[in-house]
């Protein structure tokens, strides 16, 4: 029912995206490549917010730890890209655990505040140790994923599709059901015998893994790691807006929202600084008047009444 609705929506879009390189130029592909990585950020975030019920105000903490671990390993020790990515995503998971284990003991808005402070600390550290990290200018990497736009696009597209399938499948599985119950009413979930903290930490780890991996791939796509692209609070805010805009608790909606945001930002580039304002204003209107997001109506209502 819900599942087939989502799939009926997702499959044609994915098919069209897979055939896209046949028809469009490098510029658009480059744009969509970034869109796909943002989609992974947003989907990982939705798993935490939509399902585990925890608002992570600092998605770029996880993204940044993954990205910079991978970048530093490549820059200083010339590790091959796959090894950098593997260790980078592992670092994101460990960083996430260090943050989540104590933070999840808190209730109310405190978890969100902890995640927010974590990003600020990471950003500060990177700037403070500019001699090692490249600071605000960024860190150039010897390696790059590919110099061919089409190849890069397929890497990003494939990665997004696989991540989306895993996260979507997870959200519809029994584990996803337990996670939702834990997010909504922790006392009742515990009374049914579920270790709520364990499930939330698992969700946090999964979210951290995909965020860190996507962060790592993004810096290898640019061949440079900079605070402005993977750590800055503004990047995190965009990830959150993308997920809410697309539709909370849908996973797929988060991807749609992310690609929309990246595309809209680019389409409006001719109007200069105003572009950010227009996109933000649009997001505000959607959130205020259609809190279900783009896919809220499509995927949530009807079907099972």
């Amino acid at each position, binding site marked *: 029912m819900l599942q087939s609705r989502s799939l009926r929506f997702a499959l044609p879009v994915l098919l069209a995206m897979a055939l896209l390189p046949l028809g469009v130029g490098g510029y658009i592909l480059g744009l969509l490549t970034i869109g796909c990585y943002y989609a992974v950020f947003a989907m990982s975030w939705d798993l935490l917010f939509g399902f585990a019920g925890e608002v992570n105000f600092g998605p770029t903490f996880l993204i940044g730890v993954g990205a910079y671990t991978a970048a530093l390993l490549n820059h200083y020790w010339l590790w091959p890209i796959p090894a950098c990515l593997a260790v980078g995503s592992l670092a994101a998971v460990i960083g996430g655990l260090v943050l989540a284990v104590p933070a999840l003991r808190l209730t109310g808005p405190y978890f969100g505040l902890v995640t927010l402070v974590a990003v600020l600390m990471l950003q500060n550290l990177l700037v403070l140790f500019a001699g090692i990290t490249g600071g605000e200018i960024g860190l150039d990497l010897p390696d790059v994923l590919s110099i061919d736009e089409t190849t890069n696009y397929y890497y990003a597209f494939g990665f997004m599709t696989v991540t989306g399938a895993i996260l979507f499948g997870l959200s519809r599985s*029994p584990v996803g059901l*337990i996670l939702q119950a834990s997010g909504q009413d922790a006392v009742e979930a515990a009374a049914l015998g579920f270790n*709520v903290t364990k499930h939330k930490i698992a969700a946090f780890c999964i979210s951290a893994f995909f965020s860190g991996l996507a962060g790592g791939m993004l810096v290898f796509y640019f061949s440079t790691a900079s605070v402005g692209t993977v750590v800055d609070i503004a990047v995190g805010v965009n990830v959150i807006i993308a997920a809410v805009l697309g539709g909370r608790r849908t996973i797929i909606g988060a991807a749609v929202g992310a690609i929309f945001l990246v595309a809209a930002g680019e389409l409006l580039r001719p109007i200069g600084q105003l572009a950010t304002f227009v996109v933000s204003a649009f997001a505000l209107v959607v959130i205020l008047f259609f809190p279900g997001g783009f896919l809220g109506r499509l995927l949530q209502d009807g079907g099972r009444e």
Partner: protein
Amino acid sequence: MALLKVAGLTKRFGGLVAVKEIGFSIAPGEILGLIGPNGSGKSTVMKCIMGIERPNAGSVEIDGIDVAGWPTHKIARQGVGIVFQHSRPLQRQTVLEHIKLALLPDNLLMLFTDHAVMRRAEEIAARVGLDRVMHRLPRTLPFAHLRRLELAKAIARNPKVVLVDEPFAGLTAGEVADFSNLIGSFRAEGHAVLLVDHNVKGVAALVDRVFAMYLGERVAEGTADEVMRNETVRAVYLGGKIETAARPERKGKGRTPLLEVRNAGVLYGKATALDDVSIHVGEGEFVSVVGLNGAGKTTLFNAISGLVPYSGAISWRGESLAGRTAGSIARGGIVQCPESRELFGDMTVRENLDLGGQHLEVAEAAKQLDWLFGLFPILQSRQGQNARTLSGGEQQMLAIARALMMKPKLLILDEPTLGLAPVILEQLSKALETLRQTTDITVLLGEQNVTFALPHADRVYVLEHSRIVWEGDPGRFAEEAGTGYL
């Protein structure tokens, strides 16, 4: 051997001893009723057994294993299940999926649902009478079905010990019979059942034994009959009877029209919540609107307070209220004290009251506060305590006191007795009577409890299925409208 054995259980919240050395045991196939008025500590005992609160001392043995102080999920797995009074079901999952959830093991690697699990969930749905709605979403179901869903989840865990919080709250007579049978089936299967409720009468037919608490301590134990005959229990519970008081006549009372509702109708989506309702309240009058749960009392009050859109006309002192905001209506003198109380839980009693008196002059507010402390002495002694930590009865008094701090012309009281024990009812009743005798306040009271609503009323409306079906003097209520109600 007993499945549940509680001994020396003590729980303190700061300086308040909520539960003091409570001990009892329940054998397989036995139902124990744990009863006590609001604030007696019975809910805290239940929470300590489930691990939602950590006891300060004592033991809770489940089938011989002491689980006191364990986290909730471990206690649940040891064989304890709970049927919560208020359920907050997941909005996007069907009834069947909720039951499935309760059948799942606590495992991070469960990625696919076993067919056997689905079949078992369907069986359980059928057992509790949800088989015809099992593919529907909870928000489309009536209250009684949601309670059945909670019961289904407890059945799914197949616990050795079942805790049921206020099993019959909010259910109609027919539903109560159904629920009794379902709870009785736990006994037949050899589970130990603990029913937590605030009066003996409600659970008397179902329980094997009753354990009565008051102010955190044990006051009696035995069969329902024994406990009901117990002197202490009678004193604690039944207290004095609520009696009809003589009404002081005032000049012009009820003559000057204050509030007039004409042909009011309210729709919630497609459902009619209020249908062509007309009532009027005169200055200084005490008017009661009686009706069962869901009859439309709260909807009527919300329409008057400007909280829901309505058709028809509502006027206040001859002027239409149409188009005015809820805030402006409240400032105009209509203050509603809602069923849900809406206190600021993390603020102290005093802060809650001060908020109500915001718009008053300092001296006037102090005077009003003094008068209220005279009306509700308990609030004076609880001034510095957070509202959340008050018992249900005290919270209700605070809600009324806060509303009175606003010096309303018309006070709307929505179900003030909801969930309160008889001894609290009596205190509340006395306070209302004092209010009525000593001030010229106008009151519109919505009640389900007729014995509480009638004694104070000058005039009574009966609301049934969104319509006013009777209006008249409380003295005539019993013979004309009381059949099937009293």
